[in-house]
């Protein structure tokens, strides 16, 4: 499988290493080369400096035609733009955007993006630790809702056009 990761923070770097160790072809992109220090010295994938909200730079980095695209920078809006570029302009079928604002994460699920909301996951983990019941919506990647894509058991959704009315 080919995977593209935007943002080499702790999450991006950690995921890149896991995927690469499992034998997948991984490209990770960040605007700062220093971010790549988080990667293991023996990281076998490609680490490229670039802006994942720029269509041309994504294409040059080979994001077109990957199987999985993860937008994991520290900016919710940057992730939303990068994910929609990947889904709409580059035709990537499985796209996940990290959106830490729960309101925005929910709104973009309705617009066809699979989202991962760290806030909701952490709150739920701590709430259940305190003995509260689970939040059923806070499980891993939340798939896109209200669109006619098919899921084969995978958690990531397929973004579909949400164009004007």
């Amino acid at each position, binding site marked *: 499988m080919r995977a593209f990761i935007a943002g080499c923070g702790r999450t991006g770097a950690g995921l890149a290493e896991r995927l690469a160790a499992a034998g997948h072809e991984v490209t990770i992109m960040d605007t700062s080369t220093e971010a790549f220090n988080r990667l293991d010295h023996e990281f076998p994938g490609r680490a490229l400096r670039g802006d994942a*909200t720029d*269509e041309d730079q994504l*294409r040059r980095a080979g994001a077109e035609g990957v199987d999985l695209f993860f937008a994991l920078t520290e900016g919710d*809006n940057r992730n939303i733009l990068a994910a929609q570029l990947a889904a709409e302009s580059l035709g990537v079928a499985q796209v996940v955007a990290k959106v830490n604002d729960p*309101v*925005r994460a929910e*709104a973009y699920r*309705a617009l066809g993006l699979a989202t991962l909301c760290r806030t909701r996951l952490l709150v739920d983990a701590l709430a259940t630790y305190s003995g509260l019941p689970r939040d059923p919506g806070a499980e891993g990647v939340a798939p896109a809702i209200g669109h006619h894509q098919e899921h084969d058991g995978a958690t990531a959704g397929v973004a579909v056009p949400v*164009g004007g009315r």
Partner: protein
Amino acid sequence: MYVIIVGGGKVGYYLTKELLAAGHELVLMEKDGRRARQIADEVGSIVLQRDGCEGKHLEEAGAKRAAIVAAVTGDDEDNLVVCQMAKHHFDVPRTIARVNNPRNESLFRHLGVDEIISPTRMALAAIEQDIPVHELLHLAQLPGGRLELIEARITEDSPALGRRASDLSLPEACSLFAIIRGGNAQPIRSDTALEVGDTVLAISRTESENQLHDALIGAAEGGDTD
């Protein structure tokens, strides 16, 4: 008419002043406290020191009754999110986004932004009048923002060379309407064959520009965008 402006930079500031002077009801959202106070000192209490990207704050600003939301910050991603939230979450009839990277224009339109303001595109168009930057020359954007008046020069490498205008596979909603040959303008008839040196005038949708380029000038390297 109630207008929400997001982003109190130069564009947002002057836009606010102009709209106020024209008597519109509006709110300006600027998340930076210092900047927000600075503008409020001048224009009064219509400045809301809030991040317009947050659904909660857009709602507080009255997005549900806004006729227009204009996102004019310096960051394309913020402007996109403001417009998408306004459009799809609050049913705002008209959304306007400032777009800095011209490559984002067609994506933003596709994602439901009604109107695009592109300073880069405007400067580019002004420059291209004198120096061709691309082989397609943008002469003007037609009112409504979706159609452009475009000029293309036929060269020896053009796939359209020697062919009749009616035989070309042009993108949808695209029309060739005149050629300039030997300094004279003439209408394009179905039997007009294109020659080297012809300047073709066309009206096209911004998003089908690549296809028009392929038809008149030849396939660009790096493949099509769609």
